[in-house]
């Protein structure tokens, strides 16, 4: 009787265990598309069985195991971080790339050609008022487009700085979420859903910034920048902020800066994720064109050397061949007090008139200066790096194009790598609906069998009770 009753209890416990197993399967299925969720398995353990000693055996549930592979998760985070970097870089460089017209129909290359053509036409008719006016008009178009490009690049810089601020906000939101999960974990109230949210948050954070994670003994996860600055430690969040660092003693464009919660500059620690890519565009690629506190910028260098070369020739000559003719006036003006604003301030000398242009060179040749100016179209100029001004601008455009093309190629390649890494991770920890369907069948059958066993035992008990009562 005692054995029959213990068997009955064992069968009842089996029903409970299989109910739990079915619950785990149900949870797996319903979370199959939940970001960060890893398949869970109920551990089934056989209870001791020895009929001689009265051990009834049976099955027991010994906790739930997650299929999460931390190494695979770490690898996914690393690849996500690289993808975030290249995506931000590709987006930023693409905006810059679009500003450079290389069709020859408009923009600076077309303006340069038109100005050189006007110099050339002027060289044939140095005293022609029409030819002189054409020179001034063409110079005005070139200066306008150089200014326009400089201002557009400054606009891109402003957009990128705005994106940096937005990205920093996203980072702080995610680290706040991680901090809350850590707080729940340390209070022992976390569960599988917290684990999924933590994993998902860490992966999202990786796409934004380069991080390292350290799992602590109390189950919390510390998140640090790869340079060492903490973002989350236990239940404490260390929010970061973005700002602009003005160049000391200069009116050069400021650099983007990331500050830790104490206000220390941690920009150098940001080497990955979207924030790293944006900082690369803001502090490296754009300054190479429009300058900052450390460099003049190639577009400014182009504007300054071109204006100086043209002005130098014109100011060395005279406005006419007759003795006593006035010295030539500068065609271009720019803010020479700030080399980083040469492009954005380049303009035609507002006081110049056609009569102020000097076609006569210092030796008295009537069109010597005009010929020299026309020759600038193809003559290498020392101040322009021993290349013509057309080539100088071409090299600037090529460098921009190369940066954009490389970033796009890297983005495409990295997207594939991340997809492969995620696939590998999902193979080990993702929810397979086929597997879950199979387990569902198994547990259902096991539950039915246990229930049948219970029915049989119940029948046996009924028979026993009837025999005892009759």
């Amino acid at each position, binding site marked *: 009787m005692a054995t029959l009753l213990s068997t009955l209890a064992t069968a009842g416990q089996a029903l409970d265990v299989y109910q739990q197993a079915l619950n785990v399967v149900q949870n797996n299925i319903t979370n*199959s*598309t939940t970001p960060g969720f890893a398949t869970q398995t109920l551990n089934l353990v056989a209870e001791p069985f020895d009929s001689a000693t009265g051990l009834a055996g049976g099955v027991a549930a010994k906790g739930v195991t997650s299929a999460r592979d931390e190494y695979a998760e770490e690898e996914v985070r690393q690849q996500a971080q690289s993808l975030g970097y290249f995506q931000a870089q590709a987006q930023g*460089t*693409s905006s810059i*790339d*679009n500003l450079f017209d*290389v*069709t*020859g129909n408009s923009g600076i*290359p077309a303006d*340069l*050609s*038109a100005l*050189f*053509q006007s110099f*050339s*036409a002027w*060289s*044939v*008719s*140095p005293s*022609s008022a029409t030819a002189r006016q054409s020179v001034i008009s063409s110079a005005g178009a070139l200066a306008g487009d150089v200014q326009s490009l400089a201002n557009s690049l400054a606009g891109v810089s402003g957009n990128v700085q705005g994106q940096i601020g937005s990205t920093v906000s996203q980072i702080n939101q995610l680290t706040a979420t991680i901090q809350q999960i850590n707080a729940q974990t340390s209070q022992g109230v976390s569960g599988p859903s917290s684990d999924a949210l933590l994993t998902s948050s860490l992966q999202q954070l990786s796409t934004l910034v380069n991080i390292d994670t350290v799992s602590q003994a109390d189950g919390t996860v510390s998140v640090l920048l790869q340079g060492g600055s903490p973002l989350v430690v236990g239940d404490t969040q260390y929010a970061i902020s973005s700002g602009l660092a003005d160049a000391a003693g200069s009116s050069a464009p400021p650099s983007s800066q990331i500050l830790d919660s104490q206000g220390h500059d941690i920009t150098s620690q940001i080497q990955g994720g979207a924030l790293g890519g944006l900082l690369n565009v803001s502090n490296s690629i754009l300054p190479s064109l429009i300058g900052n506190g450390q460099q003049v910028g190639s577009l400014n260098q182009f504007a300054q050397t071109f204006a100086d070369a043209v002005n130098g020739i014109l100011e060395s000559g005279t406005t006419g*061949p*007759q003795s006593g003719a006035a010295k030539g006036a500068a065609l271009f003006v720019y803010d020479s007090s700030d080399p980083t604003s040469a492009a954005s301030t380049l303009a035609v000398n507002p006081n110049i008139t056609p009569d102020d242009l000097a076609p*006569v060179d210092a030796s*008295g*040749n*009537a*069109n*010597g200066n005009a010929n020299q100016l*026309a*020759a600038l*179209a*193809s003559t290498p100029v020392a101040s322009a790096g021993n290349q*013509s001004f*057309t*080539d100088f601008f*071409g*090299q600037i*455009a*090529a460098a*921009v*194009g*190369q940066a954009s*093309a490389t970033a796009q190629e890297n983005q*495409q390649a990295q*997207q*594939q790598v991340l*997809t492969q890494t995620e*696939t590998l991770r*999902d*193979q080990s920890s*993702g*929810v*397979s*609906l*086929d597997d879950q*369907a199979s387990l*569902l*069948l198994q547990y259902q059958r096991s539950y039915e069998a246990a229930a049948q066993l219970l029915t049989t035992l119940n029948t046996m008990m009924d028979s026993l009770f009837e025999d005892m009562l009759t």
Partner: protein
Amino acid sequence: MILPVNGVTQSYLDSLDRIQSTLDSVTQQVSSGTRVSQPSDDPSAVPGILETLSQIAQDTQTKSNLNEVNSELGAGDAALQSASTALEQAISLASEAASPQTASQNADLLQQAQAIQQQLVDLSGTTFNGQYIFSGDLDDQPLYALDASQPEGVTQLANATSTRTITDGAGATLWVPPTAQEIFDPKNADGSAASGNAFAAINSLVQALQNNDQAGATTAVNSLKAADDYMNQQLGLYGIAENRVADALTGLSSSVANANQTLSNLRDADVAGDAVELTQVQTQQQAALSVGSKLSQLNLFSYLA
């Protein structure tokens, strides 16, 4: 989540993205005819494209300049031919004046000689596009005016040099326009009229006729012949310059054609190749979409009804 197609799905979507990107790029190239619309399309080709475009623009401008110079040379050439014709008429008049003439005949010859003298002065002030082409660097004014009180019958209004250098596209000098001083009024080192001085020659005829000086008229014949010879030499120089300009124009046309070919190689789309690639990519896309539609979206649950 692992679904039978899930891991594949992300890769599949990535592949579709790449196919679409290639399709967009090829379509853009075919429709625009150029494979480089922005620097990132082919960064290494950008400097070459811009240099070639600049070269074409400069060569085209130089052609335009030289066509204008050609017209100026034509105007100068025509003026010197007229001057030569006038001098030949003057030689004829001088020959007549070298023999005895009636007063009426002499007056008639004098009138004709003075008209020729005026014509030569006018020719020395020939203009083209509003500029005095024989005035050198002072091309906004004539250099000579008729002045009977002067030894050569003209007064020099200004002393001009000519430093305007006409070059080909490469900077080689094609032409430096001569001044009226050099053409009509060449001088010896001491400032006296040199042999070939047209103004001095015609003025000697005018004076001989005014003085009814037959010997003077005979001397004037020789002076006028020397002046005509000199004028023809100047015409020859114009002819040489016109040939040089014509050669330079031919060279520039060839240069522009070569530069356009270079530009085409650097920038133009390979339309035939692109058309083939377009077909291939479209086929790839259709195949990929077809496969995608046939990938099983079923799992074991589908059969557990």
